[in-house]
């Protein structure tokens, strides 16, 4: 497995607890790696280090085996980037911007750009300064993807897009992924990372708390069910049955049990003896996964300020 992006003990301390501390992760070739965290948690700082815009205080970032700071220019031959903050150069229209960008990239054909423009329903002749946030985001996406680079680094690429456009964009990312691109993207939305990423890192206060395998979560055989009883007696009787109760709400005569798929028949047999109000499956997704971890983290008082 080729490690296209490798981050080792990366630290950039801005003082006052801000910055990133001792980050370690890698992105394998062809993998889509997600970055999730609250505002100010250090997502953008990490990406700036990878892009070679800032110099690490300690630790090392390598892209394709090259040092991200020293060989920043060489690395860019294989990297495309969508910045978190969208501000375009002082040019008039989108077309002008794409042409300037193509010239800087040494790109001769605008075929891919035209294709992307169509796909995203962008009007490239619009004035850059008067574009809406969504339009600007689309323009930035086209500018990044038009050179067909092998590595894509996307800093919150869906901000400002309407839900429909977001879907189109995510489809686009999945296509790129299929074409073998290595993708690193950050986001605040769990669901879009869940649909696109292979692995997702949770970053909190400048530290990586967990790196989750999205497929493992999706295909987990352990599931949780929420059960509400009509009366107190049944509720109390059920509780004595030694199921793994992960949540207990006495007020509503409600319990949440976690069982492996193999025990499902056993559970339903037990339940048939009681008067139930409802049974529902509680989906285990990325958000749930991270929320649980984060809650433990905060309760444990570890790394929390």
């Amino acid at each position, binding site marked *: 497995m080729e490690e296209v992006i490798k981050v080792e003990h990366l630290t950039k301390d801005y003082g006052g607890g801000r910055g990133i501390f001792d980050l370690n992760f890698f992105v394998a070739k062809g993998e889509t790696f997600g970055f999730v965290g609250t505002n100010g948690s250090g997502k953008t700082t990490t990406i700036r280090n990878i892009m070679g*815009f*800032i110099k690490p205080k300690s630790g090392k970032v390598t892209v394709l085996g090259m040092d991200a700071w020293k060989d920043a220019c060489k690395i860019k031959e294989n990297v495309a980037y969508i910045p978190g903050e*969208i*501000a375009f150069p002082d040019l008039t229209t989108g077309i*002008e911007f794409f042409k300037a960008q193509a010239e800087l990239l*040494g790109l001769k054909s605008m075929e891919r750009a035209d294709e992307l423009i169509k796909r995203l329903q962008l009007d490239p002749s619009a004035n850059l300064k008067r574009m809406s946030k969504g339009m600007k985001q689309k323009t930035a996406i086209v500018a990044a993807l038009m050179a067909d680079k092998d590595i894509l680094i996307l800093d919150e690429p869906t901000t400002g897009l309407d839900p429909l456009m977001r879907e189109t964009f995510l489809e686009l990312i999945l296509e790129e992924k299929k074409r073998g691109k290595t993708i690193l993207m950050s986001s605040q939305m769990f669901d879009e990372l869940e649909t696109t990423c292979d692995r997702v890192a949770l970053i909190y206060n400048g530290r990586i708390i967990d790196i989750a395998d999205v497929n493992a979560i999706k295909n987990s055989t352990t599931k949780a069910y929420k059960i509400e009883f009509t009366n107190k007696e049944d509720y109390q009787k059920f509780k004595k049955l030694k199921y793994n109760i992960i949540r207990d709400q006495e007020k509503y005569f409600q319990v949440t049990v976690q069982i492996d798929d193999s025990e499902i028949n056993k559970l339903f047999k037990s339940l048939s003896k009681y008067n139930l109000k409802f049974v529902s499956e509680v989906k285990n997704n990325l958000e749930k996964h991270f929320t649980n971890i984060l809650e433990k983290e905060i309760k444990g008082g570890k790394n929390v300020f």
Partner: protein
Amino acid sequence: MYFSKALFKQSMKANWVKWVCVTVATCVMLAIVIIVLGSLAINDIRDSLKDVFTQADQESYLKENSVDSYEAYNLSIKFVDGLESEGLEGYMGLAWGMITSSYQQKINEYTTANGQAPTGEALVSIKEETVDELVATIKSLGDYLPAEFQEMSDEELGQFIYIILMAYDDNPDLSATSPDFIETAKASIKGNFAEYAGITAYNLYISQGETEEVAKGYQAQATTLATTAIGRYDELAGADDFVYDEDEFKGYANEYVINMIYNQAYNQYITSEEPTDEEVAAAEQYAVAAKVIANTAISTYELWIDELTGSEMTDAEIQAYAREQASASITDQIPEKVAEALEELGNMDIYGLIIGSIFYRIAGLLLPMVFVIMVANGLLAGQVDSGSMAYVLSTPTKRRTVACTQMAYLMISLLAMFLLVTVTSVISIWIVGGNNFAINFAEICLFNLGAFLTMFAFAGYCFMCSAIFNRSKYSMSIGGGLSIFMLVCTILGLFGSNVVPSAMRIDAMNVFNYFSIISLFDTVSILNGSIAFAWKFAILAGIAIVTFIIGVFRFEKKDLPL
């Protein structure tokens, strides 16, 4: 090559409107300043003021000449009268023998040593040597001398001896035993006195830095004057009932001098061989005016001499003071400070002030400075602050390439701007008269070069700030702020600099010039033709180069929040 054509084009597209506006505005401003100034008779007042001072100088000169000639006439009379006195006549034989024998001895020594008799310079120096020796010897005789000799000062005695030596040159065979000794000696002394007066006048004017021609003129004037005075005396002394009356001779002196001045003025006025009647009339009028001035000067002189005789001052001091008062011109009547201010105003170079010190160092720099501050900021700091720099740096473009390309854009746009300004200024100067205009082509080109180098230094500094700071507000306030501060200092400093006439000048405000690098753009030196501006230009270029280099390296090394 650290240069990106694509980025350069992008910078051009982003800034060409600003460039065009600033360039056109500066060129138009400059053309208006030069053409309007060139077509206005702005120097008329200055010229008439200058005339007043030139005329005052001439008047003063005329008066001095009158007083000096008058005094010389009187001195000549005194000299002959002294020669006629009985005491001197009695000792003439003795003096002649003593003085000439010492002189002849020196001549002989010289002849033996050099194998030929002394002539020219050598003879003059032998005479001077003899005079020095004899003045001491004669003075040491003290009371044995006749009263006339005792009354003489060392200087007068020296002059007397010198004249005797000159007379001896003319009559080497004459001795106290010769027949008609007294008559021959006196005649020769009188003749040589006139010659001596001429030589003295010549030497005086040469030592004052006058030309050979002018000095020769005065030599002739002094010789004629002395000869006339002596002739006048001899003529009157021939009468049996002659009694020397000083005042009578002063009257003759006055009459002679004012007529001399009249003739001089008349001849000065008439230049053509065959003057027309009008010219003659005008010359006469002019000459009469000169005569009146001369007469006034002599009367004033006499009045002051009378007034001061008997005071504590020595005769020489009295004469000097009286001469100064008599030769005072109209401008000497004005209080000194006012006269100085007026004269300075007359000498002021208004074109140099307005075009050099006000346009090129202040007004013409303002718009290019605004351009430089805005563009330098926008080339780096502005793009880092907004984040748009990310698009350039996410392509395979080195940071050094970005910095160098932006630097090149700033330099080239500034150079192109000043080339157009230079062309405009040269055409404007050509329209108003080319090299006949108060500022010639070479000077205007140096002005443009200086303005360019000044802006080049500011551009380097602003570029450096733009490269150092990630925020526009810091880059603008530190880069632009200091630049504007310096321009303001130059405006304030102008009121303390010596291009402004002293009447308007506040010297303390010159302090502001020390806070501004625009002071290194030395327009005064350019107009003076001195070379001081050149090394100052070199410093400006040095500031620019150093700051640009610091900017490029700093941009390469720093963290960018993109």
